[in-house]
């Protein structure tokens, strides 16, 4: 690593991240200087404005430095394959189109989360907004990590913010429990990961990801394998890949819908970026040979995720398990670590961004008086009360199930195509087979919700025969019979729903534009 004198302090390269940090601070300061009863709109304006400026910077960088010549590509090895770009801050941060794609994903996710939070009364604290922005900052750093330092930094920024954001609803016991669980397990995962860093550093003598590959040639590969394994464990935890997923259902359920929507997409995206960078940098030739454990975990994820989702009566938990299955699908993009595969993974994340945030936006839209509309019973007869919301949810569910013409179908298409083309042989067929089987199972899980929405809610349904419905009715009191009927409707939420629905349809019907975009990131073979 270079010494300080030659370190390239290129602040322009991290402009989106700086903007997020400034916006987070601005929100906190505004809360201090403005009178409490009038501060709310300004806080949201500062948050949303900050994200928009960051998106603008991302766009600018896309055509600027990131598109530049390959002269200063990190190393000549694996990272160079990704795209042209520049390494700044002494190689600790990489600015390339790969990074920027993830910035765009994370920024759109946080924007949606901020807008979804707007109608909620119980989160008028500026801290909440600052936490979301901070978490987005962490994800941005993680996506551009060029060394273990930055990787750790990004991971910790995002985790610390999310630990608090998850538990933010102080009155809610499940939120407290979720935050605590997330913190304890997350800390353990981070510690494991840091230990892995130490082992890898001991073997290679460098913190830069680009130096990892050299380690295989310089002696004990056992330590390399153990170190790499421990680092991956940490990322698998953040990705909620089975069997590291146990925190996800509780945390998703406990956190409020906007936070869940944001973290389910953002954390996955950023961790996926780090995973790709590490694998590309660390693995020698014939990478898929080393990744057998990853394929096993991917199949396990698909199976555990889809079967567990099929028996949930809480839609947030259902979406949490569905997320576990989707991470399993996402791992298919790493078969062969090819450009085509990673492109498919990026596309899938884009599709997942829209359909998953859309589904959570419906959950948020069904909520009232501080509670999300998350029980299956809240969805009963939704089509007859709020047809627009029900149709939007149907679209998101069908997309999650992988039905054309929604984005989820195109996503699966490219994943399977990439897997079959990867040349990974038996591993690819096992993954594809698992995808086929679990597609059927998870379709059942999603259709249960859809069927519930189109079920005619009889007058007696509130105290219906089925156990869960009774339980839900008892838990939420008399108002749950008409849950959602008079829920606060906000234009911000409607905008999120519209963006998510249009995005889901657009990526499904016209995937070419998104594919062309990712083509600049990873040239198609």
């Amino acid at each position: 690593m270079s010494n300080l004198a030659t370190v390239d302090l290129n602040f322009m390269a991290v402009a989106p991240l700086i903007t997020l940090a400034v916006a987070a601070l601005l929100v906190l300061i505004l809360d201090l200087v403005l009178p409490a009863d009038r501060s709310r709109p300004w806080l949201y304006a500062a948050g949303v404005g900050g994200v928009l400026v960051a998106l603008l910077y991302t766009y600018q960088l896309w055509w600027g430095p990131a598109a530049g010549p390959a002269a200063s590509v990190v190393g000549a090895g694996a990272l160079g394959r990704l795209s042209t770009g520049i390494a700044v801050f002494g190689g600790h941060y990489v600015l390339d189109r790969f990074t920027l794609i993830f910035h765009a994903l994370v920024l759109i996710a946080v924007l949606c989360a901020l807008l979804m939070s707007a109608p909620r009364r119980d989160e008028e604290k500026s801290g909440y907004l600052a936490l979301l922005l901070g978490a987005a900052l962490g994800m941005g750093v993680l996506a551009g990590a060029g060394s273990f330092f930055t990787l750790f930094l990004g991971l910790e920024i995002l985790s610390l913010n999310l630990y608090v954001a998850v538990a933010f609803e102080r009155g809610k016991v499940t939120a407290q429990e979720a935050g605590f669980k997330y913190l304890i397990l997350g800390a353990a995962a981070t510690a494991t990961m840091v230990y892995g860093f130490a082992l890898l550093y001991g073997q290679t003598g460098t913190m830069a990801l680009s130096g990892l590959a050299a380690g295989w040639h310089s002696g004990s590969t056992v330590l390399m394998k153990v170190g790499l394994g421990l680092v991956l464990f940490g990322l698998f935890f953040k990705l909620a890949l089975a069997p590291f997923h146990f925190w996800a259902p509780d945390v998703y359920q406990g956190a409020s819908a906007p936070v869940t929507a944001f973290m389910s997409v953002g954390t996955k995206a950023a961790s996926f970026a780090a995973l790709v960078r590490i694998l590309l940098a660390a693995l020698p030739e014939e990478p898929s040979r080393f990744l057998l454990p990853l394929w096993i975990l991917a199949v396990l994820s698909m199976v555990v995720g889809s079967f567990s989702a099929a028996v949930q009566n809480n839609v947030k938990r259902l979406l949490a398990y569905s997320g576990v299955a989707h991470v399993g699908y996402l791992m298919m993009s790493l078969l062969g670590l090819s450009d085509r595969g990673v492109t498919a993974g990026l596309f899938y994340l884009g599709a997942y961004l829209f359909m998953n945030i859309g589904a959570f936006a419906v959950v948020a839209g069904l909520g009232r008086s501080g509670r999300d509309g998350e029980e299956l019973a809240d969805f009963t007869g939704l089509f007859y009360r709020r047809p627009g919301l029900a149709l939007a949810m149907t679209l998101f569910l069908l997309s999650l199930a992988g039905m054309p013409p929604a984005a989820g179908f195109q996503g699966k298409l490219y994943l399977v195509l990439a897997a079959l083309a990867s040349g990974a042989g038996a591993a690819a067929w096992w993954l594809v087979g698992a995808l086929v089987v679990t597609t059927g199972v998870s379709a059942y899980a999603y259709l249960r919700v859809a069927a519930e929405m189109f079920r005619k809610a009889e007058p007696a349904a509130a105290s219906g025969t089925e156990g869960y419905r009774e339980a839900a009715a008892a838990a939420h009191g008399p108002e749950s019979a008409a849950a959602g009927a008079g829920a606060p409707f906000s234009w911000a939420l409607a905008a999120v729903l519209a963006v998510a629905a249009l995005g889901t349809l657009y990526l499904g019907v016209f995937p070419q534009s998104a594919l062309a975009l990712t083509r600049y990131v990873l040239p198609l073979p």
Partner: protein
Amino acid sequence: MTLTFIVFLPLLGALVSLFLPKENHDIHRKWALIVSLVALAVVLGMWGPFDAGNPGIQFEQRANWIPSIGVSYHVGVDGISYPMLIITGLVSVLAILASWNIDHRQKEFFAWMLVLQTAMYGVFVALDYILFFLFWELLLVPMYFIIGIWGGPKREYAAIKFFIYTLVGSAIMLVGILATYLKAGLGTFDIVTIAQQANFDPRFQFWAFLAFFIGFAVKVPMWPFHTWLPDAHVEAPTGGSMLLAGILLKTGTYGFFRIAFPTFPEGADAFKWLMALLSVISIIYGALAAMAQRDLKKMVAYSSVSHMGFVTLGLAAAAGAVAQAKGVGDATVIGQLLANGSMALNGAMYVMISHGLISPLLFFLVGSVLYDRAHTRMMDEMGGYFSKIPVAGTILAFAAFANLGLPGLSGFVGEFFTFVGSFPAFRTLVIIAALGLAVTAGYHLWMMQRVLMGEGKKEESFPDINGRELAVSVPLMVLIVLLGVYPALALSILDPAVSQLMLKLGGM
């Protein structure tokens, strides 16, 4: 452009209908009828320009869609798909007429019916794998809602079962599509191009054919993939049943004609015995199961399983004829054997067309005409309908005779061609299948005895068939008779395309 117009007009109509006032129930059904009639008129308008002697693709249109991976918007029709297009248009119109008195959520019902039309037309005109798959999957969504919202008491179970069965089948098919695309190495998803240019080794053809076989066999449905069908049919509202039996089942066998057979001739060869065996089991099992039903609608549903067995038997026989021809050197014998195969294929297509007319008629009579009057579908609770409702009873008898294959009606022609064409290839199996015909005749006659004859257990009298119901029945009856006495009407269109498929199967 003609085909694009036909495919997307109903979808556009569905979108427009969303803006029509919800309270005015009448406007929705009229709008859906008008849109479907326009689509049908355009389909029929193609009759003139359609060159029946040309075995190739006509009315072709092609545009780039996802150039990165070679997906194009490619549509066109030939002698195999054009008849299906006509049936689709006709049955769609009649299904909307049959659903005239849907009693709740009219707006959504007719919107879904229009979306379903887009998907059906799309499946029959798509010439790109991804486009085909898109329409194929799009069939599920409207049908899921039509069954799940407007269906009978067990509608949710039936709808989910239908959806999941087909979804898993088509997921396997999708893997087959992608493997085919990669193996062909042509960088295109074009169905026609891949069928013409790709050279697949027999081992790959085996696996690819298997993947498509599962996807299509679920839809047909062939025994043992049929269990979703009785549930879906019984629970579906009448309009849904008509389209399900008349059109949706045919998309499965159409897939064999359009994709599996021309693209993987050696795969078809490898599977011909299994396919013939499953077909004969479907024929016999479907007939026996139909005989065992008390529920009239379930009986018709199982008879669909039985009849679709003829279609797959004809397909298998074509592969069988090719295999026989490979073993001989004499050119005249080869010609004779291939002619048998052509005959079996023509018969299979003819059964598809004929069953596409007869089964909607039966489902309409059973699910609407009789049920609206008697409010039961149980045969033991009926009786004496010849005297109570003579016209409707006569039409039911007509449909039953058509379905059991009475000469002079369309059902006979297809089954006859299929049997004669298949016999040289699968002698024993065809003889066994012929026994199924006796069972078929048996359960139809027994049904007529229980439903139409006798005294009847209830004293109340019903009004006879009304004008709207006649408007649904008569066009189907006319076509059934016409195709029964003048087979050349359809064969002149079918034969060139079918003969070409036969040559392709024979590797010529």
